[in-house]
């Protein structure tokens, strides 16, 4: 997957410039709520249950202030990313113990025909591993700046 292709999975209505959540559970809920408000997800509890189970498998707080809660659920119609930020940072039980400032919630159906889910997760991890990218994502003024950053313009 090309880096620019990542941008296809981000959506303006699934961007939260400043999250209100103060802990992990609230952060998951706030991001799932975005999908619900935009009529992408109908049953919120099913999705939250899946995400909680995923965190039980191992924290998706991968360190350096980034969390990528993810999973396949029958309740998701397509592969999609919700992106949220927290200036203050949220305790997330991360691998390095640091609070999380950048959240990428990746939801996918049990089977995506084009099999994009795992390559997408991989690309996202790679993209976010650059120090400069993380800083710029925190500073992006609006959704368009986020997209410009991803496509590398």
């Amino acid at each position, binding site marked *: 997957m090309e880096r620019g292709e990542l941008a296809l999975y981000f959506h303006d209505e699934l961007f939260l410039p400043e999250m209100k959540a103060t802990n992990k559970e609230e952060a998951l809920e706030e991001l799932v709520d975005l999908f619900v408000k935009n009529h992408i997800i109908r049953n919120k509890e*099913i999705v939250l249950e899946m995400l909680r189970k995923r965190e039980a498998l191992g924290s998706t707080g991968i360190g350096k202030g980034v969390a990528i809660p993810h*999973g396949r659920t029958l*309740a998701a*119609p397509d592969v999609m990313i919700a992106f949220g930020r927290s200036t203050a940072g949220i305790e997330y039980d991360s691998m390095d113990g640091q609070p999380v400032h950048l959240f990428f919630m990746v939801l996918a*159906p049990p089977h995506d025909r084009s099999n994009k889910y795992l390559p997408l997760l991989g690309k996202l991890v790679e993209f976010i591993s650059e120090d400069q990218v993380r800083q710029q994502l925190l500073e992006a003024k609006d959704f368009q700046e986020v997209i410009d950053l991803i496509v590398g313009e």
Partner: protein
Amino acid sequence: MLSKQLELLVALQDLDCMLKEVEEVKALGFEAPGKEDLEKAREELAKKIEPRLLSTYNRLRKHYKRAIAPVKDNKCLGCFMQLPTSLSVRGRRDDEVITCQGCGRILYWLD
């Protein structure tokens, strides 16, 4: 907390998907030390499902890859059969287990 039988079945299928993909996800750089805990959680979840429904789920899972099919635009996305519109209101309440008349899969309304 999930309480309805259909929700529990969907959660079970989601969990089965997750357990199947643990190695792939680890290869991407995520840690997954809790696999055994998750397998236990799967057993706990299965206990909350009525035995008759659970055996339907297991039987369907052997036959198809996944026992539960999403419904979109009133179509079963397992076999693409058009479902009676009368089912959609009932289906969206998630409090009843409805199976597809075409393929027998358990149905979950996406929209």
